[in-house]
C-alpha cells in the first residue's frame, strides 16, 4: 500500500458543521467498504475551500475510484514519498555522528 495526499476543492469547506462532516464520513466509509480492495482512510484536514486527505491504497486510480463512488472531488492525487520534520535534522546529525564514531 502506498500513502497518497489528496486535495479536494469544496466551496465553503471550512463552514461545514460537525453533522455535515459526519455525513461525509459515512459516505466515505461506505465508498471504502464497496471497493473490494485494500484501502485505508488515514485522516483529513479542512482548510479554507479545500479538504486535504491522507489515504492508503495500491495506486492513484483506486484513490480516484473511491472519490467517484463517494461523489467527492479530487483535484490532486499525489503519492507521499517521504515524511520529515524538525526531528529529521537531528536524526541526520546523530546518524553521521554514529557513522564517524
Amino acid at each position, binding site marked *: 500500500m502506498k500513502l497518497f495526499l489528496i486535495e479536494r476543492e469544496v466551496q465553503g469547506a471550512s463552514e461545514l458543521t460537525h453533522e*455535515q462532516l459526519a455525513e461525509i464520513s459515512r459516505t466515505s466509509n461506505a465508498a471504502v467498504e464497496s471497493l*473490494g480492495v485494500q484501502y485505508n482512510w488515514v485522516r483529513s484536514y479542512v482548510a479554507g475551500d479545500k*479538504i486535504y486527505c491522507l489515504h492508503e491504497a495500491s495506486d492513484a486510480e*483506486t484513490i480516484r475510484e473511491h472519490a*467517484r463512488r463517494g461523489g*467527492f*472531488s479530487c483535484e490532486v492525487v499525489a503519492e507521499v514519498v517521504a515524511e520529515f520534520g524538525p526531528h529529521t535534522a537531528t536524526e541526520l546529525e546523530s546518524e553521521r555522528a554514529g557513522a564517524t564514531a
Partner: protein
Amino acid sequence: MTSTAADRETFRTAVGGSYPVGVELVEREPQLEHLRTALERSRTQGCFVAVSGEAGAGKSALVRVATTGQQWTRVARGLCDPLETPRPLGPVRDVLADLGVKVGADPGAPVPLAERLLDAVGSEPTTLVIEDAQWVDEASVEVLRFVARRVEALPLVVLLTYRDGEIGPDHVLRPLLGDIARLDAGTSIGLKGLSIGAIRTVLAGTGIDAPSVLALTGGNPFFVTEIARHPAEALPASVRDAVLASTSAVGAADLEVLQVIATAPDSLDDRLLPALAIDVPQLRRLEATGLLRRSRRGVGYRHELARRAVEDSIPPGVTPRLHARILLALEGVGADPAVLAHHAHAAGDDARTRAYADRAAAEATQAGSHREAVAFLELALAAPGGEPVHRAALLERLSFQQYMVSRLPEAVESISEATRLWAEARDDDGLAAAHSRRALIEYYSARRAASERHIALALAHRDAPAYGAAKSLEMLLAFRRNDADATSEARKVTRSLAQERSDDELLVRSEILGTAGDVLMGDDLAARDRLLILVHDAAARLFDETASTGWSQLAAIDVEQRRFRDAESLLEQSLPFTVDRDIPICEQWQTGVRSRLQFERGRWEAGLEDAQTVLDGGAPIASLWPHLVAGLVALRRGEPAPGGADDHLEHAWRLAEQMGEPLARLAVMAAFAERAWLLDLRDPRLAGAAALLREVGGLPGVQWSTGRLAVWLRRLETDHVDGVGHLNGTSAHDGPSLTVAEPSALELEGRSDEAAQRWRALGAPYEAALARVGSSDEQVAVAALADLEAMGAWAAADRARGVLRERGLSRVPARRRTTTVANPSGLTSRQLDVARLVALGLTNAELAQKLYISPRTADHHVSAVLTKLGLGTRREVVRRASELGLV
C-alpha cells in the same frame, strides 16, 4: 466534500483511456478535415456543424477524434439521454459544468441560461459537443437555437450529432436543424456506411470475408468493428449477436451487473456502485468485455447499440427488478426526478412513478421544457391509483402544458376530465380553477362564446382562489370587444378584489388592462405612458405574463392607431421578453402584430415572414392578421399565395366570426372589400358591410378600422364594381354617427391629395398610393401607379390603371416590366434589420456586432439590401432613409 450533483460535476475522470476507445476512424478523412478546419478557424469565425447518420455510423467517434489532442479550442461535452422523457436541459447542464459554471437545482428559463453559456465561452475559443440530439429536450433546443443565432460572431464551434432516421417532421430538433440550414455559419455532415475497401481495412488479418460483412452490415462501422473483434466466431446475424459475443465468457453474477448497467440508459452514476455492491475487481472483469466506458456520468456502455443489445437480452420479468434496484440506489444519492420517474415507471412502482413524475413535470415546467412537462404529467396520470382531486390537479396542470405546446384539443379534453373529477368531489375551488383554465384555452382557440360560458361558471364560486383570474379574463374580453363600460366595471371589481385578497399581480393586471382600455377607447395618449410604466413595473416584479399581456395589447393598439414607430420600438423590447420568459402565446401574438405592422408599412416580405411563423402552429387567436397579411399581399401582388389567398381570407373570416371582436370583424370585412375591388367581382359577404358599420361603428376605438372599411366600400361604389348593389343603397360612410380616423375622413370627403399626404406621413405607403390614384390631378394619379408597382403591388396597379382609363384619363401608361425604384417591400426581416442599421450609418463591423454575425456575412447582407433597394451605395441608403421608412 458534500455529495451533491453540482460538486460531482467538477470532478474530472482520468480513466477514459484505460478502456478501449473502440471504433477506429476509417474512411472519414474529408469529414475529419472539415471539423478540424472549423476548430482551427474558431478564433475568428464561429460555426455550427450538424453530424448525422444512423446508429453506429461513427458520429461520436468522428467528433471525438476531431476534438481530442487539438490545441485550438477547449471542449465541453453534453449528452442527451435515451430516457423515455429526457431530463430538461440535460446536455446544457453538462456543457456548463465542463465550462466551470455551476447550475443549481433550478436552472431557470432557457434564454438566461443560454446567456450564461455565452458568458462562459467569453473570448476563449471553445467547442461545444452535443451528442445524440435525437433525444434532446425542448428547453435545450431553445438554448441551442439562441446560441446558433449568435455563433458566427463568437469563437465557438458547436458540434451536434444526431440520428437522422429518428427525426420526424414534428421532432423537437426540427427548428434547430432548420436554423442550421439557414445559417451562413451552419453546415451538415452526413455519415454513410463504409465502402467495401474500408471494410477490408477493418477486417485486415481476421480472415473474414469482406463482401459477406458488407451484405450483412450495410457498412455500419460499429457493426463491422464488432464483427472484427470476434474473428474466431461465425458471422453474427445481427448487431445484437455481435455485441453479445463479448459477453459469452462472463459469469452469471457479472452478467447481471452488465444488465443492471444496461438498465440505466444515462450511465450508472458512480455513487450507486456502493449501494449496488459492485466492487473494483468485478468492474475490472467487466472492463475486459470491451463493452463499457467510464465517463463523468459514471459507468456506461461504450455505444448505445451495445447497451440496447444487452438490455434486449434481459429475460422478461427480470427488468422491473433491475429498475427497482437502481431506483433504490438512486434514492440514496438524491437523483434527478426525471431519472427517478423513468426507473419507477419501469419498475412498475405506481406510487413512486406518480410522485417523481409530478416533481419532474414541475422542474420541466420551470425550465420551459413544455413537451417534457406534458410527458411527465401523462406518466404520472397513467400510474393507477391516487386521489381523484390530486388527479384533477395534475390534469389541470397538464391542460396548461398542452396548451403551451399548441395541443389545444387535448388541453380541452384534460381540463374537461379535471372538471368532472372536481365536480364529483364537490370541490368548488377546483371547479372554479378548471372553468377559469378552460375559459382561457377557449379564448386562445378564438372561441369567444365558449370562453364566456366558462368565465360565468368560474365566477359562480366567489370565494375560490381562481375567481380573480376569471374576473381578469372577463375584463380582457370586455376590452377586446371595445366595451368601455364593461371594462371599467370589471376594473373596479378586480381592483377591490385584489385589495381584499392582497393579490398584487391581479391589481397590476387590472390596472394594465384598464389603462390599455383608456389608450384604445379613451383616445388618451397620456395613458400610453402610464401603461408603459405599469408594464415595466410588472416585469420588474416578475409578473411575466401580465407584463407581456400589457405589451401585447399596446403593440396591437399602436398598430391599429398607426403609431408605427412606437409599435416598432415596443416590439423590439417586448418580443425578446416573451422568448426570454417563455410565454409562447404572447410571442405568437406579438409576432402576428409585427406581421401586421410590417404589412401596413409596406414591408410585405418581412410581414409575410412573420405571418408564416405564426401560421406554422400558432394559436388561432394570434392567426387573424397573419391570415389577412398572407391573403392580401398575394392579392395585391397578383401572385398565388401558399395555401391560396382566398383560403387565408376565409380563415380570417371564420376566426373573426368566432372571436366576435369588432376590430377583427371590421378588418376582415375591409379585406373582402379590397379583394372585390382588386378582382372586380361581386361578393355576397359585402352585403353585411353596412350592417356591420351600423352595429359596431359607434363603439369607441374603432375609428381607424371603420375608416378603412368605409373607404373600400366607397371605392367599390365609385369604381362601379359589379355587385355594389349588395350594399343595398346604403352609403358607405353611413350617416353622421360614423366617426372615422382623419386620413380616411379626408378620403371620404374627396380630399385625396391631403389624405395621401397624411398616409405618407404615417408611413403607410400603400394607402398613400391608393389615395393618390383618386387624385383629381391626372399626373398625381398616374404617378401613383408607379408607386404601386415599386411596391410589387402589380395586381393593384393593374386594377388602378383600369379605373383611371374608365375615368377617361387620356395617357395612362402601360404596365412596366420591372421596377428599379428603391423600395423596401421585398426585404426579408433580416435584410430589413440590416437596412435599418445601414440607414443609421453603422459600419459593417458595427452592424456585424449588433446582429451577432461575422463582418463577412454583414457585407453579404448589405450588398443584398442594396440590390433589392436598387441603390448603389450605403450613403444613398442613409440619405433616403426617411423616405424609405427605415428610420
